[in-house]
């Protein structure tokens, strides 16, 4: 699927949108988010069949071999539909990390099953500090004969409670490395954490002499982690852009039909001006997310800067759109039954995952300085 034409991409995006319009309605989302697993196994299978789960996985391992542009497009739809699924964890972050590390044996062992959806993987990259930097890794690895064992804690591990395999960043004697751990092995304790965003699953994972396989790589392991995180940030940016656009749509629709003082509330400038500002936010987020995807796909020299920009711009935009949307709706959006708060919850979660806006803003300036120096 590598490098789809614009038209093919659009067709693919449409079939994704159709599947989600059909199977990830608000009713579906509300039902699924109350289940312990937090995803719909039937939908998951359909997504795998459509090629979404193995989207970025090399065809040699049973995937579609697509790249950041396609990932971004799919996540715009996922964000719009508030999709509840481990797609980001397994299909993007874990698959991306494995491919970035490039351990042939590990890839053969894991990627085909990830691609067809039969195995769910995720990556445990940070400790309880939750800063997604090497310094925040709080798992240590030690040799045990030919094998390895892990001790310590990882946190904010997305979808760990439904994962079969964890890819764990840990400090080994010779530096940071990534290890493959069976999620249900002895010495692994996965504790689900209650999340503000009920459509998300997060867990803390404690390792107590957990058996682990080191994933070999010819590059510094954290470089590979950063590469996988870049892809995940592009996916998130797409999700934020798509989610924001959907929220603005239903908010504008409401402003056209809700009458007060005998007029549609959207005729009042107090509402109209907020909507205009949100359109700028929404369109800018879309531009940023698509640009980051394109630059990453092209391995452009400014790809890192483009990803940092998308990371903070889309995060801020999605939160602002959702927050203002609730205000514009008034009382109706203060109720549990209205979907606006579900999006706000998602927006606030997305804004923290893999680094908050301030973190990305700082890194953006660093990139600009580096580009000059």
């Amino acid at each position, binding site marked *: 699927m590598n490098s789809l034409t614009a038209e093919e991409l659009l067709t693919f995006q449409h079939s994704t949108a159709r599947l989600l319009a059909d199977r990830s309605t608000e009713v579906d989302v509300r039902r699924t988010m109350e289940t312990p697993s937090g995803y719909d196994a039937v939908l998951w299978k359909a997504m795998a069949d459509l090629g979404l789960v193995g989207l970025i996985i090399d065809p040699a391992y049973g995937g579609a071999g697509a790249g950041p542009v396609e990932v971004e497009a799919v996540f715009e739809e996922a964000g719009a539909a508030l999709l509840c699924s481990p797609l980001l964890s397994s299909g993007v972050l874990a698959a991306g990390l494995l491919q970035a590390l490039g351990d042939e044996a590990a890839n053969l062992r894991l990627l085909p099953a990830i691609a067809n959806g039969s195995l769910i993987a995720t990556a445990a990259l940070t400790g309880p500090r939750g800063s997604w930097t090497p310094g925040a890794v709080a798992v240590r690895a030690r040799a045990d004969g030919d094998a390895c064992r892990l001790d310590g804690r990882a946190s904010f591990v997305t979808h760990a409670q439904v994962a079969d395999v964890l890819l764990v960043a840990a400090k080994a004697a010779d530096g940071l490395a990534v290890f493959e751990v069976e999620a249900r092995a002895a010495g692994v304790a996965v504790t689900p954490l209650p999340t503000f965003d009920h459509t998300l699953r997060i867990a803390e994972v404690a390792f107590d002499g957990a058996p682990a396989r080191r994933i070999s790589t010819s590059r510094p392991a954290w470089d590979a982690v950063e590469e996988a995180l870049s892809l995940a940030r592009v996916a998130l940016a797409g999700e934020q852009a798509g989610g924001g656009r959907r929220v603005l749509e239903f908010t504008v629709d409401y402003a056209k039909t809700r009458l007060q003082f005998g007029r549609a509330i959207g005729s009042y400038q107090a509402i*109209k001006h907020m909507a205009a500002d949100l359109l700028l936010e929404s369109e800018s987020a879309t531009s940023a997310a698509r640009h980051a995807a394109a630059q990453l796909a092209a391995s452009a020299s400014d790809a890192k800067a483009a990803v940092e920009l998308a990371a903070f711009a889309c995060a801020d935009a999605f939160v602002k759109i959702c927050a203002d949307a609730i205000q514009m709706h008034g009382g109706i959006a203060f109720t549990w039954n209205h979907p606006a708060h579900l999006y706000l919850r998602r927006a606030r979660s997305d804004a923290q995952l893999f680094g908050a806006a301030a973190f990305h803003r700082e890194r953006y300036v660093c990139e600009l300085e580096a580009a000059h120096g």
Partner: protein
Amino acid sequence: MADDAAAPVTDDGLREEVRAFLDNQWTGPLQDEAERKAWFAKVVEARWAVPRWPTIWMGRGLSDAQARIVEREFATAGAPGTGQDRTNLWANTLLAGGTQALKERLLPPLLRGEVGMCLLYSEPSAGSDLAGIRTRADRQSDHFIVNGQKVWTSYAATADYGMLIARTDWDVPKHRGISFFFLPMKQPGVEVRPLRQITNESQFNEVFLTDAICPEENLLGELGQGWGVLQTALAYERSVMGEGARGPRSGAAESKNEEPLIALAREAGALSDPLIRQEISKVIGLKKLNALNTARAKAEMKQGTSSALMSLGKLAMSRILHEEARVRTMILGAGSLLEGPDFPRAEDANFLTLNAYFTSIGGGTDQIQRNIIGERVLGLPKEPEVDRDIPFRDVRSG
């Protein structure tokens, strides 16, 4: 236009013809006004100034795609003068609405750049509500007598003509009683007074019209149909605006390669301040986002889909300019207390702070812009207008 269209030409044939013209005639950068005039005359004579226009009006009846070929060849050579069928506000407005006599008289010199022009739209009591103008034009045999006051007029002192909207009928609702004129500026009834702006500059003027005379043939469109002519003119103006705003005034050296805000912070010793870095990041991010939006808009237009993005540029630019000025001030701190040539950084920050309003008020305030986006792009209903359907003489003013 079918009768006027030139014989169809292939893209390659056209390209060759433009290249031949440029090879033979273009001799490099224009050194002075005389050379500029001579060059523009040649471009008009050879029908390259307005290739989309019909042949009877100095054009070639080319499609937009073919006209772009001409523009690209001129751009490659670095030669000005073509593409005026997109960019020449005055000539396009005149072509669309002018009388035969006025077009014959003014179109050629307008395209040659020989006619000074200005805009006589806004009035002290008609800013955002432009249709509320009170300048009057009263018919008297074969001419109109114009009385009133206009404001925010650039180049009024040197202009030969002003594009004027004036009220010709006070008994109909406000949009229907307006007419559009090319008013001769060099006459006793026209008095121009420079306006001192908050930046302490004077780019704009007030124009006082006292029994000024406007020949009947200078009426564009039908009497009372001026609002429609104005919309055409405004559309041309907006398409040219928003392509950029003025940078720092001081001309103090700025690195070509580095982001100006980073260079400024480095120079001010503030680049290690994490708070400043966050603010710099936000502003540069906003600029980049606007550039990305513009690029996406152009791509979408090329695919033939109309883009919501085009209407957002001006609003985005207002925010960027205000934010950039704020962060410059923040970087300088107490340094921004000063002004004058010895303190160019302060001069820049303070000038940009004030001049940001040029964009957030001029050409339609941000608030009006938000109305336009809300109504035309998002489809939100208009606010009721209490003065819309009553005779203008009954409309409250103040």
